[in-house]
């Protein structure tokens, strides 16, 4: 993906955030009897964000820079994040030790393609280590 195209989309997203901030700040008091209200500061940084995002979008459209962003490894990063999200979702259902052990198993077995028993051992040992260090040694509650 060209860097300019990525700038275009990220500028658009941040522009949207800037407009949202302005819209919200508009609803709050700007200046009252006691001085600036809760809408004062957000309104100004919202305007700045919208303006700078617009500048980024325009410069990305006008850019002739051929620089690209390397997304080849990104699939692995997104897969890991997806696994983390599933592990967090499972926390309430199966608890930290099982969900964390499963996440370790996934990273070792799928992402790093270790043998099944190596990945399983890594998962079990990592979960056991966390149990030993946090609840047992430090008295810290696990999720």
């Amino acid at each position: 993906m060209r860097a300019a195209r990525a700038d275009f989309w990220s500028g658009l997203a941040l522009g949207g955030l800037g407009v949202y901030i302005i819209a919200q700040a508009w609803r709050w008091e700007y200046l009252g009897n006691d001085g600036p209200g809760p809408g004062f500061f957000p309104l100004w940084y919202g305007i700045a964000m919208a303006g700078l995002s617009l500048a980024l979008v325009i410069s990305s459209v006008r850019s002739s820079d051929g620089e690209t962003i390397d997304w080849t490894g990104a699939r692995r990063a997104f897969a890991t994040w997806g696994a983390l999200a599933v592990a967090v979702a499972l926390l309430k259902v199966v608890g930290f030790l099982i969900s964390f052990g499963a996440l370790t198993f996934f990273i070792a077995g799928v992402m790093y393609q270790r043998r099944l028993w190596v990945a399983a051992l890594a998962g079990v040992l990592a979960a056991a280590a966390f149990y030993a260090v946090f609840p047992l040694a430090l008295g810290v509650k696990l999720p």
Partner: protein
Amino acid sequence: MDIASGLLQGFAVAAQPVNLLWCFVGVLLGTVVGVMPGLGPPATIAMLLPLTFLMNPASAIIMLAGIYYGAKYGGSTTAILLNVPGESASVATCFDGYQMARRGRAGAALGIAAIASFIAGTVGVIGIMLVAPPLARMALAFSSPEYFALMALGLAMVVLLAGRSMVKALLAMLVGLWLAGIGTDLFSQTSRFTFGRMELLSGIDFVVVAIGVFAIGEVLANMEGREAAKALPVPKGLRNLLPTGQDLKDSRFAFANGSLVGFFIGVLPGAGSTIASFISYGLEKAVSRRPQEFGKGVPEGVAAPEAANNAETGGALIPMLTLGIPGSSTTAVLLAALVLWGFKPGPLFIGENPALFWGLVASMYIGNVMLLVLNMPLVPLFAQVLRTPAYVLYPLIIGIAVVGVYSTSGSLFDVWLVAAFGLLGYLMRKLDYPSAPLILGLVLGGALERALRQSLMMSDGSVSILVSRPVSAVMLSLALLVLLIPVFGKLNRLRLQAIEK
């Protein structure tokens, strides 16, 4: 309190067995973190922050600071043995350090790096001791407009040097300000940007954002690659790690140059240790009688950047402790730690907490000695850390991040936020948005808004108060000039050169 009695009190605090232990743990952890490419001090400090709530604040700050300066020592190991900097500040060390290692002089390079780090670390501590108290006294005269202007200048400096695009750096900072604004407004009790969620009424915890952006973001970025680099062998035995007399003679100016350059650059917000190490390396090369040898493995090419990198730590702590203005991601996390423990870094900090301040200063003297003793004979052991398989290391980092956040708030919502900020941190890296302005915007956002609103209350809503007071007028003018640098072609080219190098 004068410096001598302050330092005596500091040593009384730092020399307590429990504080010696935490100082040792900090520098050891810092060295290990520095050795590992991809896991930096801000991520480690942020991850460990929740665990420090159980500790005495003096022990906790001694340990966290130990991680900060310990990482600078450790960063040189991978730079020299792997040609991979453990952190960005060690990039300049790669140039000559790796070449020395390739020529069979890895031991001497590691020894020079350790000695340079020790000398510069000590210079940095002396600098804090001498500069911080008078600066704090001067800042006592500041009122809200001056504070607002000072924070604006600090943020502008960070934005200036954070990345190639100042627009992106500014946008990252504004996102940080927005995140800081989420929650209940303390002046009017209005809830802002809470999306109707009860969990957001008290705002987003800094720890959640820092752990997400730094720790999870770094793990995701490191997950992109599968292969690890191969390290050059470390010579066995202390004698083989000692540089020769000629090496030390060649490096004597580099020790002094790096220490002074690093310290002064450290005091400036935003510049940071990477820029300090490059400037020091460039200066050393410029004054050298053999500049053509630089990059081929000269000891002074290792000594200068390593000294600058380490002295910068002392300099960077000064604005954080005396003005409450952090100049980098790591000092922002340390500032947040002090605030979370109930302290208010700023001009009154040293006077109100002499034991904590001087205890920290004294612990840094002790920590630097510990690091020298640890690093010289134990380098081969630290190099073994590089053998930790990624499929073990990364889940452990994720696990510590999750448990750390949950232990602070007991809220699964915060764990979700960590995952979300982790994705944000990763995307920021990919899209070339710097994370330092976001973190500084988040840390300073609340105080910046408070100072602005208090200033305007003082002047019945007139913004002229910000420019009618000389100190704030000068600082705001400087901030404006800093932000206008991209408009001046020549200055902008210099800025880009500093960043790209």
